[in-house]
């Protein structure tokens, strides 16, 4: 599956709720900063300005899932 394909942001949040229970996410000017299990991923894009549920590229989601050590769970939910 291409890393350039997109997943709606709210689906990414649902995946995080399932795979990274207890994580925190803080909205910054350009990104969401996700913290879980002692790791920080500060570069989850907020997407286009004004879009409530923008698409997030699968390549970013794959990297975030590897970085936070939740890759297998993320694949199971999002198929990334």
């Amino acid at each position: 599956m291409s890393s350039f394909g997109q997943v709606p942001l709210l689906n990414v949040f649902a995946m995080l709720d399932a795979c990274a229970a207890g994580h925190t996410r803080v909205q910054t000017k350009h990104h969401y900063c996700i913290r879980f299990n002692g790791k920080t991923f500060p570069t989850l894009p907020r997407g286009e300005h004004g879009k409530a549920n923008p698409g997030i590229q699968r390549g970013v989601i794959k990297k975030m899932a590897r970085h936070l050590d939740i890759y297998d769970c993320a694949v199971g939910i999002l198929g990334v």
Partner: protein
Amino acid sequence: MAWPLCFTYTRSVMGKGFLAHVAFCGRTLAVMETDGVWLHGVNPGAIAVGGGSLADAHKALHEALTKTLIDFAEAAATYDAFEAAVDAFYHETDADLQEWEEEVARIKDGRTAPPDGLRRCPDPELYVRVRAMRIEQLTPDDNPLSLRDATADDFGAAA
């Protein structure tokens, strides 16, 4: 196919009552896909960008790093807090580090070739440097849209 790359990045960033200069020599793993290239960060690890070509992905990496540093500047109440955030971001890596090292070994023993057109940076000196700046230290290169963004010289094959 994946290539282990090194890159340099420099940027001046304004925060709340401070001006900082940030310089990286970082590592990234370039992964070729049928519709483009993805750069998976190693140092810093928590970043990934894609582009239609290696040059496009390189430009996207610079843009993403700049946006991330601006986020850190917005969140930091002091210069010291900003410096700590940048330092932690740069050093936090993940499993892509092992893959990067394996790809370096594959190039060094001739199993794969580095990408054409990139300078070679065998055994790159990795660093992150953050320093406070005074207004008289600024130069035109510190302008946000200067031509220092993502030039070919900033990028290299790490073997």
